[in-house]
């Protein structure tokens, strides 16, 4: 039954119920860099539940004190703001450690005892949120053991809410994603599974919905009549860093496009949902994903580009080529750059190309969604001897700076009738006094509250893999199109530019 008292979404945003967060893989990088710093910042902003406990679960042997000390180092290095020792000590009182081999049933009984002990000591009926900060191969084992230990409640009749948060990669392809979904659903209901895609926690991405549906001036233009094309770019200046082994078996398409880019795309292109409930929004996203055209092999060759970086110079520094990086096979065919042209076969987006690109070792780190509007008829200005009128461009910058800019044409001062592009900008930093939280902060808080809006549902994941399936099969099967090369520190191969040039478009200079 739906809780009738949940109606006031603003007040709901302020609180989460008493929660015990159990992190599996608690000594790993994600816990240190993102989860614990995010939680401390939530505590500092007073968003955490009044009663909140973290239990770290991992294979190693640690006392609570040791574990807290390890986490403190992570907070000092990775928190978005400086956290004083006093604040940390106060927060760290709520952190405990439980040794746990993922496949050791006895350890789950210990965990259960610890959870009950903490609940009793604090006189709380804690909700249990299990965060799987582990490799996906452990998801099934952990969820099975949690269920066997009696740590999973029935979502309809239980005495508390129990849910899991799982990290990407969510599958390697459509089949493995389906298998993983089935494995999780054997032990948890779909509404107890929160699949995290941290891009959805970014303020600018969340703002897409607000921007589209709360501004009367944009939504009427948001269709094939007024939009010429859309670009989504995710550029990274870094190479594979220490993830060489992982990345070489994955590639940029699976690492970035299948999840972050397709999620952003679906949010950008959805029809107005009936309300802001999680499933209403996700239903609409799935409709977009279903409408994205699945390519034949020929279409894959025509509409996609894959490339790998070679030696080059970035910011004055000479950089190694991809196959010279540690952990990369010298004959690797893994793409570090991908560009694709998508088509959405529905009424709204018919004929509007959507170009996406993602790459490593590009000149700068930037993620931007760019909407190019159709030009007005030029008849009025034709023949007056000045440059072409430029398109209106709406750019939504996701990172590093969060904000929106709109390029319009304006007459410069002076006697000549000219049109010159000018930019109207909205920047989060300059318009709101309150700094933006890290994506993980928002997502952790939402998971505690049981709000799944910013998490991906099983069918979204499967549709996203289904879109990529013919592309990956063509790339990996027939070795077509050929793997192009680009120098590190450039904006990708010439083939990527050619992909747009064919239709008189060009990538936005970022």
């Amino acid at each position, binding site marked *: 039954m739906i809780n009738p008292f949940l109606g*006031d979404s603003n007040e709901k945003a*302020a609180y989460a119920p008493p929660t015990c967060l159990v992190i599996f893989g608690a000594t790993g990088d994600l816990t240190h860099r993102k989860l614990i710093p995010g939680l401390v910042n939530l505590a500092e902003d007073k968003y955490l539940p009044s009663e909140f406990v973290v239990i770290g679960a991992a294979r190693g042997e640690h006392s609570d004190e040791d574990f807290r000390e390890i986490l403190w180092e992570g907070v000092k290095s990775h928190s978005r703001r400086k956290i004083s020792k006093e604040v940390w000590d106060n927060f760290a009182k709520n952190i405990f450690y439980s040794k746990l081999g993922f496949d050791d049933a006895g350890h789950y009984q210990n965990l259960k005892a610890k959870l009950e002990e903490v609940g009793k000591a604090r006189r709380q009926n804690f909700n249990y949120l299990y965060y799987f900060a582990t490799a996906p191969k452990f998801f099934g084992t952990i969820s099975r053991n949690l269920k066997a230990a009696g740590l999973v409640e*029935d979502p309809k009749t239980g005495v508390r809410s129990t849910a899991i948060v799982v990290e990407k990669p969510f599958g390697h392809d459509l089949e493995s994603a389906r298998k993983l979904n089935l494995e999780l659903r054997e032990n948890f209901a779909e509404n107890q599974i929160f699949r995290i895609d941290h891009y959805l926690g970014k303020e600018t991405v969340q703002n897409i919905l607000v921007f589209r549906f709360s501004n009367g001036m944009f939504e009427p233009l948001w269709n094939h009549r007024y939009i010429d094309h859309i670009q989504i770019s995710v550029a990274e200046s870094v190479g594979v860093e220490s993830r060489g082994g992982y990345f070489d078996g994955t590639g940029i398409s699976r690492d970035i496009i299948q999840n972050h880019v397709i999620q952003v795309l679906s949010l950008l292109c959805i029809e107005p949902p009936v309300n802001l409930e999680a499933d209403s929004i996700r239903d609409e996203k799935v409709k977009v994903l279903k409408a994205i055209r699945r390519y034949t092999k020929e279409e894959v060759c025509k509409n996609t580009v894959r490339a790998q970086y070679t030696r080059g110079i970035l910011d004055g520094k000479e950089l190694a080529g991809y196959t010279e990086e540690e952990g990369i096979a010298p004959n690797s065919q893994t793409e570090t750059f991908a560009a694709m042209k998508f088509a959405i076969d529905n009424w709204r987006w018919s004929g509007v190309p959507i170009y996406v690109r993602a790459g490593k070792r590009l000149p700068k780190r930037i993620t931007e969604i760019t909407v190019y509007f159709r030009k007005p008829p030029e008849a009025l200005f034709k023949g007056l001897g000045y440059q072409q009128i430029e398109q209106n461009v709406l750019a939504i910058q996701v990172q590093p700076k969060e904000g929106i800019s709109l390029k319009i044409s304006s007459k410069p001062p002076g006697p000549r009738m000219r049109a010159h592009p000018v930019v109207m900008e909205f920047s989060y930093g300059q318009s709101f006094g309150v700094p933006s939280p890290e994506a993980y902060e928002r997502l952790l808080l939402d998971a505690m509250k049981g709000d799944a809006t910013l998490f991906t549902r099983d069918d979204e994941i499967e549709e996203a893999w289904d879109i990529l399936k013919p592309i990956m099969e063509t790339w990996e099967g027939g070795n077509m199109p050929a793997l192009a090369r680009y120098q590190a520190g450039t904006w990708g191969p010439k083939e990527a530019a050619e992909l747009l040039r064919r239709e008189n478009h060009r990538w936005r200079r970022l």
Partner: protein
Amino acid sequence: MTATSSKFESVELNKLEKMLADIKGRIGESAEAHASFTTQNTVVLGSTSVNGTLENEVVKNLMRLNPARFFLLEIKPDIKDINLSARCELVSEENKICSEVIKLESPEDRMMEVASILRSHLLTGVSTDLFISDISVVSEKVANNIISLCERVIFDGRTCGGLSKAVWLGRFCNTRIDLEWLRLAPWREAVRMVFEIPGIANRLPDIETITIVGGKESTEALGPLYMAGWILGCLKLEVSARGTGFFECRGEAGVGVNLKFVPGDAELSGIAFEFSDEKQPGFRVDMRRKGEILETVSTGKFDVRTSQPYKDLSVIELLQRFFLVGTSVYKYDVALRQAIDIENLKQGYRFS
């Protein structure tokens, strides 16, 4: 090195905007850099004679959180002229955000002139909030001239005359925010949370009695009335009749729930939900405030006991919370309407 704030300086009306621009220039690197990024106007209405420096505290505490052009409007019976002064404060050097504070001291009989000054100097294109820190200065004349300029009026029903004043303010401004309503947020949260437990949520249709404990004289206190109004609104119930010691409430499906008010030792000290005995005898959920703890206990089905801190927030803290988190005006209006219905049934007359 530049200063980041200025003291109030008297100014003639026709020089106000220029003076503010000059001050902005003085406290920053250049006047040009301090384009105003404020997103609203905030008018604080009160009198220093009653509230001391509350108005200044409001500005001091809100300007960082909610940069605005602030108008401090003090009604002073002992002066004849309107005194005007202003100051600026750079609330974020990095982002060049500046809050401006314009102080207006005026006798009550010059409200039309004050309103004209506000109309001329309210920032264009952004909304205006009015916070009433002292309701005693808000006469019909003040309300007609000043409140009607604003999109939202914020007041504290606990000290501002209760339900009747809330209704009265609605004559001048459609959107009312009562700090007493905000004070009840932890209670609303406790109710929400207990009905998040799936096994308890399933029993919602079986609620028989809702008891609100608080206020020394039963329904006179605003908190219990708002709380009852909110619960009825969420459950889509309306009070339909008054019985002995209870109100009968009915929903669209004709389901009846009894609402009781029991005097307590605080403004609001407890809420209880009792369920029909057919499925689980003695099943009930109790929420009680015990000092600085709000405790929820369910018995008869699950033995659930949970608690959360409960702190009496100051007016400033409530305002900060409002500007940070907000509240649902729609839900408040529904609760207010329900509260009025309850009071009407009790008193045998109509407020509105």
